[in-house]
């Protein structure tokens, strides 16, 4: 066992854990951050995606010791403190880019990382970035549409979430 201070969503969090335990388990079990999901345990489905210094990683295959000293962002840390959705989250909502929603946190975080690096991605770049993130409900059409929508909103700039023209759309 070892004591680590992790920086999670901008806050220092101390955990006492086996150094080789997956970051995913520490986030979910010790820190009650359940947005990242267990899907396969081997980094293949990417439901467990979190950002480490802004880059997407599969937290189910990452020993917790490797995350020390890095900024960990989980889906819970993406929205503004008041709960206002991040533009990528808003785009996923507006595009109905989910069914069961289990893969959504991973998809949203991977898109956030993509748009930070490549604010105006081509269709091929979107597909390449998301191709390994699996959705068993098979909502890829609307997921890719959501990424396009988020890119159009200019997510890389620190624009407020309300630029997405509100959450509910009737008709």
């Amino acid at each position, binding site marked *: 066992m070892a004591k680590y201070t992790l920086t999670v969503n901008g806050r220092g969090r101390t955990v006492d854990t086996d150094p080789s335990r997956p970051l995913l388990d520490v986030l979910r079990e010790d820190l009650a951050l359940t947005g990242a999901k267990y899907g*396969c345990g081997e980094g293949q489905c990417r439901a467990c995606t979190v950002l480490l210094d802004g880059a997407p990683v599969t937290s189910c295959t990452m020993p917790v010791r490797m995350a020390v000293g890095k900024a960990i962002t*989980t889906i819970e840390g993406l*929205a503004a403190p008041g709960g206002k959705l991040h533009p990528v989250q808003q785009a*996923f909502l507006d595009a109905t880019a989910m*069914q*069961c929603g289990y893969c959504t946190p991973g998809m949203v975080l991977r898109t956030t990382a993509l748009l930070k690096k490549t604010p105006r991605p081509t269709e091929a770049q979107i597909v390449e970035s998301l191709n390994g993130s699996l959705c068993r409900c098979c909502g890829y059409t609307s997921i890719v549409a959501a990424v396009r929508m988020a890119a159009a909103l200019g997510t890389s700039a620190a624009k407020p979430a309300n630029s997405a023209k509100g959450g509910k759309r009737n008709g």
Partner: protein
Amino acid sequence: MPNYSYPPMEQRRVMGKRITRLDGMEKAAGKAKYNSDVRPKGTIHAVGVFSPHAHARVKSVDTSAAQQAPGFAAVSVVAAPGAEVNWAGQEIAFVAAQTEEQARDCARLIKVEYEALPHLVREENLAKAGSRGKPAGEQVTGDPEAAFSAAGAVTHEAEYGIPVITHCCLEPHGQIVAWDGAANKIEYWPSTQAISAVGGDLAKQLELPATQVHSHQDHIGGGFGSKFQSDLWGAHAAKLSKMAGGKPVKLYLERREELTIAGVRPSVFGKVKLSASASGEMTGWDSTTWMTGGFAGGGLNADLLPYVFRNVANRRINHTAVSTNNGASRAWRAPNHPQVCYITCAAMEDLAAKLKMDPMEFFLKNLDKTPRADTYKAQILKAAEMIAWKQNWKPRGSSTGTVKRGLGLALGTWGGAGHASRCRTTINPDGSVLIEIGSQDLGTGTRTIITQVVAETLGLPMGGITLKLGDNNYPASGASGGSTTVGGVSASSRKASVDALDKLFAAVAPALGVPADQLEAVDSKIQVKGNAAKSMTWKAACAKLGVSAIIAENANDPRNPGGLTTGGVGGCQMADVSVDTETGIVKINKVVAVQDVGLVINPKTSDSQVYGGVIMGICAALMEERVMDEMTGRFLNADMEFYKLAGAGDIGEIEVHMDITPDHDKRGVIGIGEPATVPTIACIANAVANAIGVRVPVLPLTPKNVLNALHNTTRRLA
């Protein structure tokens, strides 16, 4: 008898609108709680010990070392010495400890001795099945032999196969369960498609009255037909909880177990002979099919053959279910249909090629053998227009170059009428409205469409309705399977809400000075029909209730749905593919889906179902296959590295068309989750055959299988 009919299509304000899903906000925010996220205070963890043998007798189970391990809480043995295990992955024991890691350590310390026995895990060679095959009786209509030997008849005979595939839900099967032994009460958080029934199923396993189990679920990470029961892991997790003094036990399967024992779709292999006249009139069908649904056998309704075109004059059907040493099959989105659709539409495409006929013309010519010729004709013509069939279709194998392009089509059908469902509507004196229904939202949009129906009925905005589901304390509603949910819950919530509104009308009629049946609820007001000037606000109307809320409960009766829901839809899909004949890689250019619908409550969520269904079909057509090792009897690719699913880059362009029209609207609500996935596999397989000039007989359309077909090195089935 109140009038429960929906208002005419053009008068609806909320139903029929593309309203954003109500669960979208929590899901986008990462706040949606799945039961695998639930962690009541004091939760301990359990894992299983599973048989490594496909067939064995358990000689001994020694848990003593595990019981001394750090953190140990309780152990429950499933397979006692002497028990026979019949598939690799069968449950031997479950053990609980303070942490998941400790539980895993405990499981490793459980020593099990087995006597290995002979196994059969593969079914594609029927001759090897021997007595494990259970033939169903032969069915004959007309005289198939006469049809095949008739003057001028063109016959085609070939083998086809579609392997076992898995549900592969991203959220594995499992539950949190706490059994308070003193009170004999169980709190139960399963990942389930049947919140009203699964608690009773657990109670039955534990020999308790159903009243003792309280089931909860907000969200589920996929089910697709595999999550109806409480399962052995549910019962043993409960027992471990009781043994551990009532502490909540969390027991979720890991990916390997999930794929191995938590449900698969049965395979189908078969030899088909069919015939047509030279002009393309299909005259005869003879199929000998076999499949496995696991150790228990069963699992395919061969009576559906030839699929859709079942009214062919001369028909012979033989079918054998093979018991293999594999985990049991479970319902899988549109049980039976995708498999028999493939066998039928592939054989028909092959015969059309032999007739040198455009398969679309061949299908059109034979629609008199289907139960809905007019629907299919319109759908085929629409799909053909969407994919530019006339411009792009070329005779089989005439595509030139190394990358060859082809088109294919297939037809599907499904029921989709609403299941039994009860709903309770409460109108409170402060104007708030509560809907309680023992249903579940699999992510299909159930929350959203119920709220739309109630908002429409009560003349309120969506935000004026509070909906509660996912709890077996609410009025019971059916399991979500077979596309039956939308029809069931819309009808029950409509009826309960009409009843509640009628009571409100009765309470306010005197104040408005007209009989109650002259009132209507529109725009958050109760008004005299057609006279908006004579009205009172919803809030003022509800205030007339004094201290008594209105509570109304009503149900959808599947035997008498009163026109609110019906079943029976057709669908046509066409695929445009490119196949690299050097690498064997199949690329989907486009799939078009023309889906028959009834009354559509929310086109946004229904679109989502059809897109999802098509993409699920693409996964199965191109990638999915359970690979069993004959030697060890194990499932070789029971992980997500080698059990492949399509990603965003594999799906090509998808175009969906649904006829949302007053004529179809009159049919009432029909579920479309299942039918949308039925024809996809077959139309892609047909497009590949059209492109490369030969049939890839056994799916999936992997590079290996495509290259084998191209080089004529496909292994014969038997």
